[in-house]
Structure formats: structure tokens, C-alpha cells
């Protein structure tokens, strides 16, 4: 029988649960020697590993030594506290999404997408929306339960929003290559602020995607979700249909609360 994992104090696993064993490799810019081996052991100890052990070392090139080491990690992490932060979503496949949409929404889900501002990259948005899709999964255009509008690249935020309002969109998807420059970030926040200014924030799901977009960044920017590398169209579709169903449930609850308050 396996021991139960204590999810509040997780550490690396190698031979048995909780042994904390870590394998690591690195190169030091020192000549291949016993002193180099000593240096590696000392460095691993300074990194906080107990019982550091050099299992292999060799000269990489003159003046450089390559190491493979084991060490025991003495730290733990509270995984229990991290669960429920949004990335433990179980994704539905296309058939499940169609069935879920038919049962909970009973209408077409309208999604409008674009690369905004000066961003010329439309690869991300095409992968999510177009029939061709990505990684063997076709895009939302191919779903019976979705109606999609791909406006392409370099679309001004105001034009994207106008289209979304025109077609009564359930979700806006923007793709943006976020860099450390404020410009790209400003493009993303401006769309959120414009949706607010139009009084439509409660009616639309806002999702952003790009190589550096995380849930943390999405929250900072004011989006409902952020999608990054490795996202496939059914991940996005799962999020949208579940969120729409949750919103419908919330507003039904609010309505019945108001009715009972009045009645």
C-alpha cells in the first residue's frame, strides 16, 4: 500500500515518498580536479541541499567542469494552498463541450477575436478560432455550438469592441505579444477599460492570450482568463462554456433572491 501524500508539505520524490531527492546538473568555470568536486559539493550545500553527492563529473572543455549531483531538498511546499487557483481545470473534449453547451446554454456562443494594436501576429488567434486549429484540434469555428469572428491583426481596440457589441458577443479573445514595454500592456488594459466605459463588462468574457500571458498577468490586466503556450482550442472553449454557465447560474440566483425579497 502506498503512503498517503501530505499535500500541505510536499517535497521531491525519488526512491520513496518524502525523501526529497533531487538530481541536478551544472557546469562550473573551473578546471577538472578534486578541488572542482569539492567546490560543487560546497555549492550544493549552500543551495540548501543536505547530503549532497557528486555522482558524475567530467571536463567539458579546458577550464570547465560538468557535474551531475544528487542532494536532499529540505524544504517543502504547501500544495493544498495552491489548489483551486484556476489552473487545475479539467478540460472537456470537443464532444463534451458541444453536449455541455447544448444542455446549459442552448444557444450559439459568440466569440470575437483579434490581435490588437500594432501587433501583427495573428498565429495565436488563428490557432484558437480558425477551422484549421492547432495541434490536431480544430478551432472554435468548427464547433457547432460556437459562432466566431476573427478580425485578424492590428485591429484597434475600439473596432474590436464595436464588432463585439454588434454581434452581441459572449466573449472577446485578444492575442498580444507582451513584452516588458508598457505599450503592449497598455493595449491590453485599454480594451478592458473601453469595455467598462461602454458598460458592457458584465456581459462579456474577456480572455487574452500570448506567449507570456499567465493567469496572474491576466488578473493584473483585468481579464477573466489568460492563455499561454500549450493552450489548445478546446481549453479555451471549456473555459468559455463553463464560465457562461456559471454566470447564468449566478444571475438566476440573483433574480430569484430579488423575487423572494419582493414577494
Amino acid at each position, binding site marked *: 500500500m502506498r503512503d498517503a501524500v501530505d499535500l500541505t508539505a510536499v517535497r521531491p520524490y525519488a526512491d520513496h515518498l518524502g525523501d526529497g531527492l533531487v538530481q541536478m546538473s551544472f557546469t562550473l568555470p573551473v578546471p577538472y580536479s578534486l578541488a572542482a568536486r569539492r567546490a560543487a559539493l560546497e555549492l550544493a550545500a549552500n543551495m540548501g541541499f543536505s547530503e549532497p553527492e557528486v555522482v558524475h563529473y567530467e571536463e567539458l572543455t579546458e577550464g570547465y567542469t560538468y557535474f551531475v549531483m544528487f542532494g536532499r531538498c529540505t524544504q517543502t511546499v*504547501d500544495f493544498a*494552498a*495552491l*489548489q*483551486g*487557483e*484556476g489552473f487545475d481545470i479539467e478540460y472537456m473534449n470537443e464532444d463534451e463541450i458541444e453536449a455541455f453547451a447544448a444542455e446549459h446554454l442552448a444557444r450559439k456562443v459568440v466569440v470575437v477575436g483579434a490581435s490588437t494594436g500594432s501587433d501583427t501576429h495573428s498565429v495565436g488567434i488563428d490557432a484558437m478560432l480558425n477551422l484549421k486549429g492547432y495541434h490536431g484540434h480544430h478551432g472554435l469555428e468548427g464547433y457547432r455550438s460556437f459562432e466566431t469572428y476573427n478580425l485578424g491583426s492590428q485591429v*484597434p*481596440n*475600439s*473596432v474590436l*469592441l*464595436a*464588432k463585439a*457589441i*454588434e454581434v452581441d458577443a459572449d466573449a472577446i479573445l485578444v492575442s498580444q505579444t*507582451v513584452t*516588458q514595454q*508598457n505599450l503592449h*500592456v*497598455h493595449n491590453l*488594459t*485599454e480594451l*478592458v*477599460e*473601453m469595455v*467598462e*466605459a*461602454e*458598460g458592457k*463588462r*458584465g456581459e462579456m468574457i474577456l480572455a487574452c492570450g500570448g506567449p*507570456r500571458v*499567465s*493567469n*496572474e*498577468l*491576466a*488578473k*493584473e*490586466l*483585468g*481579464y*477573466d*482568463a*489568460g492563455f499561454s503556450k500549450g493552450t489548445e482550442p478546446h481549453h479555451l472553449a471549456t473555459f468559455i462554456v463553463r*464560465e457562461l454557465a*456559471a454566470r447564468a447560474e*449566478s444571475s438566476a*440566483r*440573483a433574480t430569484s433572491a430579488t423575487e423572494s425579497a419582493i414577494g
Partner: protein
Amino acid sequence: MTLSELTASDRRLALVGLAKNTGKTVALTALLRELQDDGRCVGVTSVGRDGEEHDVIDARIEKPRVRLPAGSLVATTDGLLRASAIAHELVGDTDVRTPLGRVLIARLAAAGTIEIAGPSAATDVRAVSDAMLAHGAEQVLIDGAVDRRAASSPEVTDGLIMSTGAVLDRDIEEVVLQTRDAVELVRLPSVEDGSDTGLRLAQLARAGVSSVNGERVTLLVDEDFATVALPPRFVLSTEAEQIAELLDANPTARWLLVAGALPDRFLRNLVHAVHRRRRELVVVVADSTRVFLWKRGPDWYRRQGVELRTLNSIQLQAITVNPIAPQSHGFDSAELRGLLEEAIPDVPIFDVLHADYAGVAPIAGNATVG
């Protein structure tokens, strides 16, 4: 004067930055310490995420942590509340789901350091703020994120602290100009200037709702107060040509009452058409958070014949300055504040980390940016 003294009467106070790393969260931590010294019970929420250790885009940048005293109210996600390990009492649940989890409202039973991620949407921000006030907070502080302004709308908050800093530009003069434009935008004059005309326009704008679908409509108003309702989404997506046609078809139009957002793209086309016809037009918006300017400030548009006015004013109480652009450059704090005070003479300007700040300085080193 201190930040807390200047904002004492604002039950809901927004902190808004002109960009990332202008020092919003540092201003928040300064305020929190001052309010704690005064024994005031606060509620805190953030439209983004606050109190994280490292910047979400540039991990080299350390961010100020947020420490709240026992008894404080906070709106943050279930996960972050749990991760803080601070004993607390849940006083409210919300239906607000964020990318970091569901937002709860809690009263802290002990002091502690916590990451704060409340609702993003303006109406939800207002709702959790009011809930915290109802549960005993004397003042609610709403921290902004990046350059987002929506929570500073008078529909959400009573007052505003604006944060600016070296991060806006390497040129100190440019930082001053951009800040001056942003202040001018926040303090656009009210359409209600005491005249009968102003009153009638305000009435028209407030009543500007379509009889067809109940949506708000944008109105073009002529000198006899006759109105023309513009098609839906006109201000969002119309091209220069149609704007010119609209002006020509309405030669005596004087005012444009905009129902929603006013993007820079529209304004640029409008100002071009107005200027060429040697006309003047006053554009009225609900409040300045509806206006999206790019490079040019309100003054430039006014000189070209298009004046911006609002229905509801934002109370800008103070400006805070971060003279350091992390991982880049810095200015002398006193010099930057001096130049800003010349350009913006009637708003108190502080560097809360500087020795000459009268309030309780946050612990330096722990808080260089935010």
C-alpha cells in the same frame, strides 16, 4: 499634510497609476500605516493583484508586500486568503470569479502579510467596497493595476490618488508633460458650469436613452438644443469620412453627448473635421474614465476646436511620485516633484519614501516600486 489626512473624507478611495511601477502599492502601504496609527478600520481590495513578491512581467522587480492590521477587512481570492495563513472570519461570499480564484470578503483576526486580488470589473469593485463598509470598514482603499482607471469613476469611488514616476520616460520633462496631461484628463471641467445651457445639456445627456432598446445613445445637439441620435457604435468604429458627413449634415451642431467610450481614434478624426470647417464642438462624456487619449492631452484638442467636458467629476486628492524606474533610470525626487508642482500647482505631490514626507514612511528597502 499626509495622504491619509487629504483623503480622510473619501469613504471609497481609488489608487491609480499612470503605468506599471509608478508606486501605487507603495502609496497604499503608506496610507495603511497612517490609518493604522490613527486606529481607523480599513477595507482593502485590488483590481489587479497586490502584495506579490515579484513583478508579473519582469521578475527582477521586487514589489512591496501588503501588511494589514488585525480587524481589517479584505476582498481577495479563496486561494490567496488561505495562503496568507492569517486567522480570519469570512463575512461575505461573492459570485466574482477571477483567474486566481473566487473572491471572498474576510475580517482578519490577526495582523499579517497578504496578497490581495479582488474583483476587476467596476460594478463588482463597488459592490465589495460597499460590503466592506457595511461590515465596519471606515474607509475602503481600492488599489489599481497597471494603468487601469475604471475603478476611479465617480460611479465607483469618492476620491483618487494618482501615482506617476520615472518609468513613464527617460526624459524628466516628458514625465512631467505626460503627468500634466493625465491630471488634466482626470479633472476635465464639468458640463454643469452654472449656466442654463450647461444644465440643459446635463439633463439631455442623463436622459440619453434609446426608446427602442433601452441602450444609452450618443446625441448630437445643436444651438437650439435639437438632438440627433447617432447610430449605435458610431463613436467606436466610424471612419473619418462619415464624421465629416455628420458635421456637414448638422451645420449648427455644438455639442456631442457621448454615451459610452470616447476613443482617441474617433477624437483625432473629429478634431480634423472640426478644425477644417473652422467650427467648435464640445464633447461630453459621463466621466473621464470614458476617454482614451493617446499622446495628445485635452488641452491640445481644445486648441483645435474640440473641448472635453464631463457629467461627473473625479476628486483628485493627491499625486504620488516614484522617481525610480526599476531596472532602468532614476531622477532626483525633489527635482521631479518641483517640476511637477510647477506644471500642476493645485494638487499636493508626495514621494512617500522620501525623508521629507510628513506622514509615516513605509519601511524603505521593502518597498521601492509598486
